[in-house]
């Protein structure tokens, strides 16, 4: 199955995606971010190494993105920040996608009171302003990176659940699902082998866009001081250091800010590219 899905992705999605220049730019940005996260430890410098004598130096050959008020290398801190963003983006979206798929599948496949229960729960969850819910939860818990990822994941699964439910409702009645049912396929086989692989495309799009959203949320929380805690560098908490010296040291705000902007842009472009690639479906 994994082999066949790989072939499908390669055959259809990649061939379409290659034609789309903006999506390729997005994919390039995302790849660059992975590269940044990967090479972070190769720099052999400690992102938390304080050197007061080197504080607030502007960008130069020795310090590509300058140094901050404690003399820490901004470039190295940004590489490590990319790791945090990547981690938060993928783990939070992983949690929300998994939850959304499970609840959406249950609602769409079984229907009836299970459907009613799950979808009313979705409606209730959508009533909360997510960001303030996260603020309130973090106020009770330790503001650690794991708590943030879990909270972001637990508050953003509703869209995926609705997408999956809608796909299940229509796929449930398709002939190939009926054929499998007539062959005596079990519920699990129908869900995991016949319906879910065909329902997953819109989720792929929403997950890619969701990574961008999660990175933004993490940055915002860190900027407010209740996200990733110093000295661990994240793009959000680097911004707040920059805010204090905005008049004198522009590089402390500009580089992390640009990084957030470009990364979110990259994921959005890639997500929309995947959406376009999947849109004509398999009707050739």
């Amino acid at each position, binding site marked *: *199955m994994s082999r*066949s*899905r790989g*072939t*499908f992705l390669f*055959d259809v999605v990649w061939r379409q995606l290659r034609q789309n220049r903006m999506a390729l730019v997005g994919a390039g940005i995302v790849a660059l971010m992975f590269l940044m996260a990967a090479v972070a430890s190769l720099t052999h410098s400690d992102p938390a190494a304080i050197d007061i004598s080197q504080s607030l130096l502007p960008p130069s050959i020795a310090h590509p993105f300058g140094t901050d008020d404690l003399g820490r290398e901004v470039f190295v801190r940004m590489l490590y920040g990319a790791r945090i963003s990547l981690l938060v983006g993928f783990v939070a979206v992983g949690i929300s996608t998994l939850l959304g798929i499970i609840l959406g599948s249950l609602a769409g496949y079984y229907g009836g009171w299970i459907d009613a229960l799950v979808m009313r729960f979705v409606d209730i969850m959508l009533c909360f302003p997510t960001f303030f819910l996260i603020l309130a939860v973090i106020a009770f818990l330790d503001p650690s990176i794991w708590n943030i990822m879990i909270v972001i994941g637990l508050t953003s699964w509703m869209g995926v659940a609705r997408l999956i439910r809608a796909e299940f409702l229509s796929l449930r009645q*398709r*002939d*190939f699902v*009926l*054929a*499998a*049912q*007539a*062959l*005596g*396929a079990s519920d699990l*086989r129908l869900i995991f*082998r*016949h319906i879910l*692989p*065909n329902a997953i495309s819109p989720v792929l799009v929403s997950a890619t866009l969701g990574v961008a959203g999660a990175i933004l949320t993490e940055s915002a929380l860190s900027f407010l001081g209740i996200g990733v805690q110093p000295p661990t560098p994240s793009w959000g908490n680097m911004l707040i250091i920059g805010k204090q010296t905005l008049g004198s040291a522009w590089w402390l705000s500009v580089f992390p800010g640009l990084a957030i902007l470009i990364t979110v842009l990259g994921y959005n472009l890639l997500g929309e590219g995947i959406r376009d690639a999947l849109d004509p479906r*398999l009707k*050739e």
Partner: protein
Amino acid sequence: MPLLEVKNLRKSFRMTDSLGRTAGQLVAVDNLSFSLQQGETLGLVGESGCGKSTTGKLILQLLQPDSGQIYFVGEELTHLSSRQMRPYRRRMQMIFQDPYSSLNPRMTVGSILSEPLLIHRLTPPGQVRERVIELLEKVGLTAEHQQRYPHEFSGGQRQRIGIARALAVEPQLVIADEPVSALDLSVQAQILNLLRGFQKEHNLSYLFIAHDLAVIEHVSDRIAVMYLGKIVELTSAAELYKNPCHPYTEALLNAVPTPDPGHPRPAALSGEIPSPVNPPSGCYFHPRCPYADELCRQQDPPLLETETGHLVACHHSEQVGRYLLRKAGTE
């Protein structure tokens, strides 16, 4: 004992308005009874929406009937749990109308065909591949096709794959739901020949669903004509074509296209099929029937045996035939 016997089968669907309240009831299948012998083909004909496909799905237990019984080799199916139903699923299969939606687009042909073998453990795991190739060759495809995806095939080839999937479990009964109506004329003949070949080879029974009488004449032993969820006429294929006793059958026969363009065509059946949510009074066919009178507007005619083996539901069956167009060469 017939292979399949359907007794007083009824299925309705609840119609709901935008607030989810019951707004009406759509009776898709109403008091349907027929039987099917081993090796026999029963044609089921009717317009779109008359309940033909619903009947097929009810027999396969893909839908639950409101009432009535379905006996398959003597076993009543409607009361079986899905676990108890499993051994019977192997013995009855379905071929679908639309070859584009009946195959999972994310599975290779090889995995589509090996699935039934794995579900019912019909073949030792080591021999699944050989059995799949054997199935492919049986329907006129080749071993190399098993690596491909459904979207790489033409409609006719896909229908062959659908047939191979249905035959993989070696069923006794195959419900063919308009298996050729989505295909080109030349491909239709190939598929029909394929189906007939398998019938001879395995003594299969077919419930062959179609929306007109053009195709079904050549494949059916007996034909049941359905109108708005009811059987209006049921008899042998030869008798139906020679001596139709229901005005609707007559109209369907007149609608079969003729190869002779100069031949006079009678007026097509006027009006649309009435809504099954709000069916007409009396005989459901009376608003469109040239023979209809006051009796037809008030009383629903029962399905009665007029001659041996010829069942008709019409108050005026003895008059029917007046408007029948005799085709050149048949009479």
